[in-house]
């Protein structure tokens, strides 16, 4: 991937981001770049600031200082509901689906940002609204196929197995047609086979759909096998960055995970 990445500007650039909660510095000047088509694994022990950074990227938090640049523009001036329009899609750590809606409707909501309408035209079911619904339905039908959800497409998501719900969330995020996909602990709660399958799926999404992926994950096997690049956080600071083998042999990283003094 580095060959492809080297000749272009980074797609995502996290620049000296700092976040403070009261007296605690949750993120302290974190910076790294992510190039188009890369899969970046963001790891670190509990409380390292991974989720905080993730929430900055989806604009649920605003950094106290620093900047986040996506496709050449700062995202900090846009509210979180603009992120899908900009091209950033996300999934949630503990599946956050619309529990009373069907699988199909959940994915349809993902297409919200790729369409436009007003409640009055929709109430009257004007022809252009119907055409748009058809367009959304085609996108959704393709994703249902792609993520193998056809059997449960019209079932409410509430009672589905956890692994299936995670696939629905992935389909919903893809309906945004994202340039960058943020995955928050996608392997959490999955069994061994499902994790292997997930790793294959993440690479497949990158390869077939040209989606850049930023992955926050505790499952080392998954992160090390799918990522092109790893960023390690500890106590809100970046302590290492590089290809998986480099990071794995980095003494600071080993110390952070196994405890003991860093020097």
């Amino acid at each position, binding site marked *: 991937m580095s060959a492809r990445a080297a000749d272009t500007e980074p797609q995502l650039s996290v620049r000296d981001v700092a976040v403070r909660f009261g007296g605690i510095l949750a993120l302290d000047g974190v910076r790294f770049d992510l190039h188009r088509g890369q899969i970046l694994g963001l790891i670190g022990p509990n409380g390292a600031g991974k989720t905080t950074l993730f929430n900055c990227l*989806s604009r*649920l938090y605003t950094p106290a200082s620093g900047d986040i640049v996506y496709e050449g523009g700062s995202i900090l001036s846009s*509210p*979180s*509901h*603009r*992120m*899908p*329009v900009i091209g950033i899609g*996300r999934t*949630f750590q503990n599946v*956050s*689906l*619309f*529990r*009373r*809606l069907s699988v199909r*409707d959940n994915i*349809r*909501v*993902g*297409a*919200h*940002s790729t*369409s436009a*309408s*007003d*409640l009055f035209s*929709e*109430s*009257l*079911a004007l*022809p252009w*609204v*119907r*055409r*748009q*619904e*058809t*367009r*959304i*339905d*085609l996108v959704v*039908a*393709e994703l*249902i*196929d792609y993520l193998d959800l056809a059997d449960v497409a019209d079932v409410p998501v509430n009672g589905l197995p956890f692994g299936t719900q995670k696939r629905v969330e992935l389909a*919903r995020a893809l309906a*945004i047609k994202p340039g960058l996909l943020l995955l928050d602990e996608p392997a959490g709660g999955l069994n061994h086979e499902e994790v292997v399958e997930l790793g294959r799926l993440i690479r497949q999404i990158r390869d077939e759909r040209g989606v850049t992926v930023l992955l926050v994950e505790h499952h080392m096997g998954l992160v090390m096998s799918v990522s092109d690049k790893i960023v390690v956080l500890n106590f809100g600071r970046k302590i290492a960055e590089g290809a998986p083998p480099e990071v794995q042999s980095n003494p600071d990283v080993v110390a952070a995970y196994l405890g003991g003094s860093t020097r």
Partner: protein
Amino acid sequence: MTIETSIAEQPPTTTTQRAAVAQLQRRPNARQLAIAVVCLGSTIAAPFLVSNFLIFQMTMVLVYTIAILGLNILTGINGQLSLGHGAFYAAGAYTAAILMDRWGIGYFWTLPAAALVCFVVGFLFGLPALRLEGVYLALATFALAVVTPQLFKLSPFENWTAGVTGITLAKPDAPFGLPLDQDQWLYLFTLAMTIAAYVCAHNLIARRGGRALMAIRDNPIAAQSMGVNTALYKSLAFGISALYTGVAGALGAIVLQFVAPDSFTFSLSIALLVGLVVGGVGWLPGALFGGAFVLFVPNLAESVSKGLSGAVYGLVLITLMYVMPSGVGGLLRATRAFASKRYD
């Protein structure tokens, strides 16, 4: 309701896509059509078969149906609790009454006016309500319900509202020389408005905006991350909801030929909420059952015992909630599930 998605603009390319589109075309099946035709036929025939008083009662059921439909969009579909929808009903009723009484505007044209006024009022109320959730929002809407009838009594507005005495209106005749008496005509007119309101609400919830409203109800953070402007949609839900309830209020004023501040007390708001819950929260056809409950159960309680009508009403309500905790809608779903388990 026939909602077919036109596919002429973008012919699906592959067989899978075509199959998907065919599956997604939302055409009702033969049985649903038959049920719709029978229901429609009997509701149109009804005013020619029963007494005028019953026609009047059925008309009021339809009026409450529209009001509850509006409350359902806010509470059932968007998940915002309102204890104050009587205020929007009152606003619609007074808009219609003042327009007819002071400016001699035809009753039909007061409906769009009431719709517009209540949409704006509802949307504006929805803006500060964005900061409130659950019980806090319930309290704010409660305050709205308490304040509104007082407003209509204030002396600066007496020129229009006629203060506590209220406004008496004339009963409209059937237009175009139709051979209908006034009650029959009002019933059919209200029926047409109810069907229109229902079709609009049904269209809305099956589309992008309606899905956004339900997404906010189920998970506001996720909805926001999918690009739904939650603040805008929550205010719009208030506006649309108030619009429906306001139109119901206007129709109610036309049907009763009378508005006065004391017709719109807090108990009206609670009656609408009770109707919503009895019919089924989030289930649109439930509004009709809710409307019937709002109108008939208090009368029924009165006829059982004048002195203890409140107790009888309460008993009926408790029994209903015990037998069908998620309203008529929940009961129908449970029955269907039971039947399909048993006979399939």
